[in-house]
């Protein structure tokens, strides 16, 4: 495979218990030299281009052998929301919009949205008129309806986000954010794993001291039932005088 400068010799090497170590060495030596020679022959037979700085270079073809994975297989844990799982299934890709777009009128590249944007700000807006879709007259005017629809969609999106958060706590976070959150949680655990729950430890610059929340003590009512209180007292007296 000259594309990846690799040569594969798949013929079997016959070694049994009787062959000596030196014999094994010589066999392997022969095989490797043959293979490398073959690779060199192929590479030097490739088309050539001359460059100024680096001399004469061979143009390598595209690699044909598949390299094994460098990183482990991504687990489905990476898909944290329902949409992500659906998109993976259907093969829907994320398309990033470019910031710059070509403007035919001025013949320049303008920005999609912002300071030097493609849109003409002085022209009449596109939504100066909104056609009514159905023949029967709607109860609201189209602009109010549009705003109401938007609010509905936003609320729906919010509730879906909350649902996603319940289903998977790591949803909504980028991998970097997830790692940062995990690290923060580990740090908190480490800081409170002392005898005094991190209360009297020296603080590092940039960190604030561990918050100590004492368990709230619960007392009976001040003017609660006097009889039940007296019963409690009598019970304790019984225990004391035993």
């Amino acid at each position, binding site marked *: 495979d000259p594309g990846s400068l690799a040569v594969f010799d798949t013929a079997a090497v016959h070694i049994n218990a009787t062959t000596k170590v030196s014999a094994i060495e010589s066999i392997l030596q022969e095989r490797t030299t043959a293979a490398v020679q073959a690779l060199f022959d192929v590479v030097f037979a490739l088309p050539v281009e001359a460059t100024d700085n680096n001399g004469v270079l061979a143009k390598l073809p595209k690699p044909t052998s598949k390299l094994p994975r460098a990183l482990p297989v991504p687990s489905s844990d990476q898909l944290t929301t329902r949409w992500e799982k659906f998109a993976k299934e259907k093969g829907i890709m994320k398309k990033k919009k470019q910031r710059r777009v070509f403007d035919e009128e001025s013949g320049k590249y303008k920005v999609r949205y912002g300071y030097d944007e493609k849109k003409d700000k002085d022209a009449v807006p596109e939504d100066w008129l909104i056609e009514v879709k159905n023949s029967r007259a709607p109860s609201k005017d189209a602009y109010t309806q549009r705003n109401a629809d938007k609010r509905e969609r936003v609320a729906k999106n919010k509730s879906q986000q909350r649902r996603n958060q319940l289903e998977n706590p790591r949803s909504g976070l980028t991998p970097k954010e997830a790692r940062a959150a995990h690290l923060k949680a580990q740090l908190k655990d480490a800081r409170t794993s002392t005898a005094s729950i991190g209360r009297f430890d020296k603080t590092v610059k940039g960190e604030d001291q561990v918050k100590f929340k004492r368990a709230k003590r619960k*007392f*009976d009512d*001040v*003017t609660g039932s006097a009889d039940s209180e007296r019963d409690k*007292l009598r019970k304790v007296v019984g*225990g004391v*005088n035993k």
Partner: protein
Amino acid sequence: MRPLTEEEVKTLFEKLAKYIGRNITHLIDRQDDPHCFRVHRDRVYYVSESIMRKATSVNPHLMSMGVCFGKFSKTGKFRLHVTCLEYLAQYAKYKVWVKPTGEMPFMYGNHILKAHLGRITEDTPEHQGVVILSMSDVPLGFGVTAKSTQDARKMEPTGIIVFHQADVGEYLRNEDTLV
């Protein structure tokens, strides 16, 4: 102001039982005017229920109500004050009577010596909480016996028979801190 927790009640009654034993029930079940225990700023007050209810509306700072029996330390130990002497003297099991010559030393905060001893209840064990009275049955304070009744008979006159814990003179000496 709040009622006592179970542990606090236990601590309080264990202390009281050293002096009045089973008569604590007389404190809890009173025929005339039902009283209750309340804690206010670490001090335990024995107060009539109607007055306690009125005291809930004292604003801003309630000083004291009823009788202050004592106070809880920061670590939860209870210390009896002389202010509860009236109730201790009423219900005490073991009493020590002190001669007129021994009244003044005791009221200045000294322990009671054998020479000052007038009478002592029979069968008082060692390290028992006792109430100290003058020969005219006026309560002077309370303390803890150093020796039992039998051992006290054999002691020399300068020996201590009752350790001082609280006396009536504290009303003058600790005027500021006593509630």
